């Protein structure tokens, strides 16, 4: 299974509806479909709050479903877990794989054996030494079905012997591919030379836990977790507050702030920011106009958030009529005036997409040409398609996830554009989230909107291979093009990066020409407000530790 991406949903319920507050800054970009919390003109409220008295960073957040790195499946948990735990390697803010607890590593000539050397003197936050044994034990724990990990096979599945543990229902505990050479040296064997294996190790599922601590504490260990990240969990009250404090035993440069306080109780984020209750907030569509006004005092705090590497699109099931007809798909694609939608509905917040790999992402190439808006061309393609006659056209049902957020504003406009330009009528079916997911996984949907892909780590394979290889589990539209498959297979084993990227671009061009999906947006160009006393806060497009480098002035 190749998919290593995080499935990314604009209307992810847990994050959005359940915390009207949760304009977590990590999610700031997704605010396009979540109409954000809004309280214009609210300011000079109570002045009990102001610049924090202590050296503490304050933020709105929502309850993390888990602190256990091996169990994490959601971004909320992951963004806290990366602050508390860490692993062999990590991503830096430029999205490069860099050493973390491992000082260095060697890859054998056949590309199948990785030998990691751990740093000297690295310690867990309780003072215990981190050894190679802890890593081996952690990997085995993550794989053990008793742990209940949902994605051990996704992130660790390449390791030899891991499948046996996962499928053994507890009988097999040892992963044969992981060997402790000595206290500081760990050897991991994988089943095939896979360039992306290291990237998988940056995910929390591969993080290290203290064998001694977890075994001695039993299930309660998670209430006061011990890790190797820049912070320690100081206090957690469900639905109220979460406090992180600096881990003084962190191996690298220690955090500049004493701690981070996360408000979990909800509240209108924007208003809390203006009240100086929190130091950072996302800006929703409804507030954007106001804070962009240079006369507004808030405009000075406005920060451009770099786009997340995401593409949202309308998916077509190319097995079912009328989407089995290339001309029909092209007609629909050419009929959507994304520029108009972006400007009028999203106030220019969003960047329209005609291709698949987002700009700025490794492997992005401006030479890939998308299908642009062209009403005349759209009509011509429709006339050429075998469904040009409305009576021969089967019913079209566009499914959108319906609860937990406004149904994407764009869906209704797009269906109206199809109707106006082409006379193609679409029924919109809004289904509740769990049902949507189930139908999508079963590849039962005919045409769907409201979801997108977000990269977990920087490689174009994340987009092209995962979404469009004919055997990929997440190729929900049953798109099959042998030429694309061939290019993807070639890219998988290609070692030269430039050549590899070119292969992906070639595949991307074919996919776009086939109108396999209708690309809509490369996510939003989000905005956030950051208090002037907060320095060194960097927005990142992926989940990496980010509180340790900021400081309060």
């Amino acid at each position, binding site marked *: *299974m190749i*998919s290593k991406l*995080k*499935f990314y949903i604009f209307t992810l*319920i*847990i994050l959005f*509806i*359940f*915390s*009207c*507050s949760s304009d977590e800054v990590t999610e700031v970009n997704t605010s396009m479909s979540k109409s954000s*919390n809004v*309280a*214009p*003109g*609210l300011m*000079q*409220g*109570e002045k009990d709050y102001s610049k924090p008295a202590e050296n503490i960073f304050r933020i709105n957040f929502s309850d993390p*479903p*888990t602190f*256990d790195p091996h*169990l994490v*499946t959601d971004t909320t948990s992951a963004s806290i877990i990366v602050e508390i735990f860490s692993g062999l390697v990590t991503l830096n803010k430029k999205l490069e794989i860099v050493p973390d607890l491992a000082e260095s590593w060697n890859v054998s000539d056949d590309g199948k054996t990785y030998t990691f050397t751990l740093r000297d003197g690295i310690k867990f936050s309780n003072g215990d030494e981190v050894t190679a044994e802890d890593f081996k034990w952690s990997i085995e724990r993550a794989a053990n*079905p008793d742990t*209940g990990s*949902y*994605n051990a*096979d*996704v992130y660790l599945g390449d390791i030899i012997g891991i499948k046996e543990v*996962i*499928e053994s*229902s507890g009988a097999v505990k040892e992963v044969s591919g992981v060997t402790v050479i000595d206290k500081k040296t760990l050897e991991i064997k994988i089943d095939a030379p896979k360039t992306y294996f290291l990237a998988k190790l940056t995910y929390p599922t591969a993080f290290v836990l203290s064998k001694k601590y977890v075994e001695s504490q039993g*299930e309660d260990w*998670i209430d006061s977790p011990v890790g190797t990240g820049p912070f320690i969990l100081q206090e957690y*009250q*469900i*639905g*109220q507050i979460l406090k992180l404090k600096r881990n003084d035993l962190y191996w690298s440069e220690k955090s500049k702030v004493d701690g981070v306080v996360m408000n*979990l*109780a*909800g*509240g*209108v984020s924007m*208003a*809390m920011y203006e*009240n100086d*209750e929190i130091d950072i907030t996302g800006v929703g569509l409804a507030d954007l106009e106001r804070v962009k006004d240079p006369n507004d005092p808030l405009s000075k705090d406005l920060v451009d958030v770099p786009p997340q590497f995401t593409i949202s699109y309308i998916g077509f099931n190319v097995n079912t009529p009328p989407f089995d007809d290339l001309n029909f798909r092209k007609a629909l694609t050419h009929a959507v005036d994304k520029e108009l939608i972006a400007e009028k509905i999203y106030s220019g917040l969003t960047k329209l997409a005609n291709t698949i790999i987002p700009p700025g992402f490794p492997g992005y190439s401006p030479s890939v040409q998308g299908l642009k808006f062209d009403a005349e061309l759209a009509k011509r393609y429709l006339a050429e398609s075998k469904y040009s006659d409305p009576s021969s056209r089967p019913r079209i049902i566009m499914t959108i996830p319906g*609860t*937990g957020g406004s149904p994407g504003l764009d869906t209704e406009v797009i269906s109206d554009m199809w109707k106006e330009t082409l006379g193609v009528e679409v029924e919109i079916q809004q289904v*509740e*989230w*769990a*049902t949507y*997911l*189930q139908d999508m*996984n079963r590849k039962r949907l005919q045409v769907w909107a409201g979801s997108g*892909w977000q990269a977990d780590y920087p490689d174009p394979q994340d987009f092209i291979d995962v979404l469009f290889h004919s055997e990929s*589990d*997440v190729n929900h539209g049953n798109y099959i093009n042998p030429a694309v498959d061939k290019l993807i297979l070639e890219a998988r084993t290609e070692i030269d990066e430039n050549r590899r990227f070119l292969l992906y671009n070639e595949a991307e061009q074919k996919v776009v020409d086939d109108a396999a999906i209708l690309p809509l947006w490369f996510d939003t160009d989000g905005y956030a407000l950051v208090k002037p006393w907060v320095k060194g806060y960097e927005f990142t497009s992926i989940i990496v530790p980010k509180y340790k480098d900021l400081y309060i002035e």
Partner: protein
Amino acid sequence: MLNYILRRIFWMPILLLLVSLIVFFLGVYGPGDPVEVQLGNNFDEQSANRIREKMGLNDPFFIQWANYIGNALTGDFRESYVFKNRSVSELLLPKLIVSAKLNLISFGIALAVGIPLGFYAAINYGNPKDPLVVIFALIFYAMPVFFTAPFLILIFALQLDLVPVSGWGGIFDKRIILPALTIGIPGAAVFVRLIRSSMIEVLDTDYIKLARAKGVSENMVLWKHAFRNALLPVVTIMGFSLAGLFGGSLIVELLFGIPGIGRISLDSVYSRDYPVIMAIVLIGSSALVIANLIIDFVYTLIDPRIGME
């Protein structure tokens, strides 16, 4: 009487069993699957099945149900599917307390405003003050919460700058005022109507007429005789309100950002977090059933004339 109460007490566990059975049925046979929601894009049938197997989701319906009930009887409501390794009780208790606090304050507001106004309307029965009060009460009663909430925020938080906008800080925090008003105002309207009609009815009885004829002072008539009797229907509503204490006011909690039970209810339905759904339904149902029982009981205490069915 005793017989009746006993019958009701005997019926209660059966009722709860049936409630749990229905919810379980909806869960097992309805669309959507907790494992898939958790897996997201990492879904593949094989691993999903393995996890389902492990969680006992592949067991026959009745076995799953019986297992659940067995655990619940020993006080074990299992762990949430979403909030991993966290017991449902640990998860729900703080939220229950938040909702209960908010509802209690709202209920207080409703009573404090509603009863005097209802009383006032009743003693003015027949002159223009009465319909005026009633109409005002109804206007507030009919005011949709979708309007009340933003309107209150606009006036009290933005224009007058008296209270923070939203969030939660417990009973003694200013932030409770607006949501409590949002719930309390329509509640007050209910009590106005209730007290009013009940007072009017009581004042019309022979018993009060007799007291008046006897020359008992009007104050005495109103307060001692009429008002006490008029409170009777209030007891009923009060019982139900108290039962609803632990049921969050979903929309108010959403609009004001309050970490109560309402939000997690909706959340659990969407993510198919069955242990949480089950616990919430069972808590809610028990509260309702017990409240009913108490209302019946109190009724017979206050007014022995009322027989039981």
